[in-house]
């Protein structure tokens, strides 16, 4: 049976402002408190909260997202991990108060799903970053090929032959994959 809090995931997918407002009303305070207790500011809390919701949205839009614990616990888990990453990057303060003791009902599957959400978002960010470093012709061709057009239609749009478009796409993908693999983050993103 679906968890009743799945409605918040649906609200993200539908961009439903009323249910999303309810989500903020219920959960924003707790996340704000956790981040303020751990060297963060209100702005940090706002960014982490929004980022966590976007990562849930991104994972959910792939159609493979079923909440098995309360949204509050799930959000807390994601925000905590994201905030730890930020603090690690800043290397300033020690984290004191982010335990999930209050959420002893979180199952292993929820931990995995939370990790999946974060990894999924980090992979997308890395891909977008590497794509932006490529030449214009590659960017154009790849974006067209990811827009749902067939390679034949892509070739017509670019006014080149089908064989050339196909060859060029494989060259561009090879370049993109090399850039992605060279990133120090590559291995930690569990492709």
């Amino acid at each position, binding site marked *: 049976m679906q968890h009743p809090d799945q409605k918040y995931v649906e609200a993200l997918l*539908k961009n*439903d*402002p009323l249910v999303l407002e*309810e989500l903020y009303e219920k959960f924003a305070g707790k996340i704000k408190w956790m981040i303020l207790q751990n060297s963060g500011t209100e702005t940090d809390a*706002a960014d982490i909260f929004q980022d966590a919701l*976007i990562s849930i949205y991104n994972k959910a839009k792939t159609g493979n997202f079923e909440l098995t614990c309360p949204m509050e616990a799930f959000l807390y888990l994601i925000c905590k991990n994201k905030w730890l990453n930020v603090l690690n990057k800043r290397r300033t303060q020690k984290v004191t108060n982010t335990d999930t003791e209050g959420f002893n009902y979180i199952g292993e599957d929820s931990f995995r799903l939370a990790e999946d959400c974060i990894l999924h978002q980090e992979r997308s960010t890395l891909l977008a970053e590497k794509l932006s470093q490529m030449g214009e012709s590659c960017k154009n061709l790849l974006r067209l090929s990811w827009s*749902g057009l067939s390679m034949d239609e892509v070739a017509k749009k670019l006014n080149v032959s089908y064989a050339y478009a196909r060859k060029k796409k*494989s*060259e561009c993908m090879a370049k993109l*994959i090399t850039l992605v693999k060279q990133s120090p983050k590559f291995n930690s993103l569990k492709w």
Partner: protein
Amino acid sequence: MNDNFEKIESYLNGSMPAEEKSLFERELAESDELQQSLKLYSIINTEMYNAQKYSDQETALKNTLSQLNEKYFRQQSAPVISMHRNSSFIKTAMAIAAGLVLILVAYFTFFKNSNSPSQLADLYVKNELIHLSQTMDGAKDSLQQGIAAYNNKEYNKALQLFEAIYTAHPDNSDALRYAGIVYLVTKEYDKALKAFDELALKKELFSNAGQFLKAITLLQRNGKGDKDAAKSLLQNVVKENQEGSTEAKQWLNHW
């Protein structure tokens, strides 16, 4: 290396001939590197396809979340009352306010009876629709945020909110009405007409301004046949005593 990627592309998009395919699958079984390339190629294709497919929705969602962030993280505001379900108090208050507006408009139009129907519709838009009534009960939900944006003339923001509310809650006729009004004041008459048409079809509403607003839009657009169509709509509004019937009666006297 690139040759492999060309093969991967045709393997994944299904254009690889059968014989070549079985050869490629044999190669795959023997090479971990090729397997890894295929996996990565496929993940990148899927993730980027999804990212593009949902990019507009993601932008709209980020917009909603940013507004909520502003409200819940950056303002030290008192707890807000969410307007998930309209209370009867709000409805009554809105009905009274709407009544007052109608009386004012009737009064206004009575002293302006030298104007043509198009001018009267124009005055109505400028005087009555340029500002929407807000927060009868201090509620600050998304609809109210949309109204606030509208009153600040941030029409794009207002429209996004109204449309998002209406998409998620097709029973929220206020969101549809306000979206139509945004289109009307930004002179996107065709879209306004579409919204008001949809509003007019909502038979369950106790008070429906759909036909009246549609008539105003037609008078504003003032294209071929628009005035006649507006007249017949206004006649209908009067006949069925719909919302706006007082103004409609006055305006029909100027035809």
